[in-house]
């Protein structure tokens, strides 16, 4: 992996899940160009939906702010390479 280490900025998530999130992001960056934020977000969200159940949301970018409601224990915001990543679960569907 070419990317440096991810830096967690805020989280409400188990350590194991955090590691999974950052690994998934790193994997996505191997697969897609850094400008293809939507594909990167899709990769991560689909991974989390399949492993932890449906209803995950993912935002990837270099300039965004947001407000959201998340389920307990399902939120992480971290930086990796030039991008910021937000992953949270809004609901179970």
């Amino acid at each position, binding site marked *: 992996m070419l990317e440096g280490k991810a830096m967690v900025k805020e989280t409400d998530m188990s350590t194991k899940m955090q590691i999974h999130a950052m690994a998934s992001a790193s994997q996505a960056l191997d697969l897609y160009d850094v400008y293809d934020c939507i594909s990167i977000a899709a990769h991560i969200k689909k991974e989390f939906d399949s492993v932890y159940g449906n209803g995950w*949301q993912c935002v990837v970018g270099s300039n965004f702010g947001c407000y959201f*409601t998340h389920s307990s224990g399902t939120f992480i915001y971290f930086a990796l390479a030039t991008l910021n990543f937000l992953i949270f679960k809004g609901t179970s569907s």
Partner: protein
Amino acid sequence: MEEAEKELERRSKFLNSLIQKKKKGIEQHEHESFKVHVRACDMPLPLQNRALQCARLHLESMPPGNKLDNKRLALALKKEFDSSYGPAWHCIVGTSFGSYVTHSVGGFLYFSIDKVYILLFKTAVEPLDH
């Protein structure tokens, strides 16, 4: 004297019309500087209009030249929609981001206003475990 009064009245009307034209021009300019594009949507029209109006009002209330506070705008929109249309709404604001989300039927709007992109969507709320 009567001629002078008529001339003054004519000039006064002319100035008023100039002022009105100027005001319209300014309004038009302001409107143009906040052009709105709905880029993707699954939302009833009244809710769309509500979101667009809320975003526009928020941007217009900022002093010119001030940098947009993404989080503040996101908060304003989320709060308005949570209180008006029930929880839980999520809002993302920025100039450079991509996302992949699952949303409730009829609860998704992605639009741009000026140079800012705004994503507003709703998810169902699961009952709290007791």
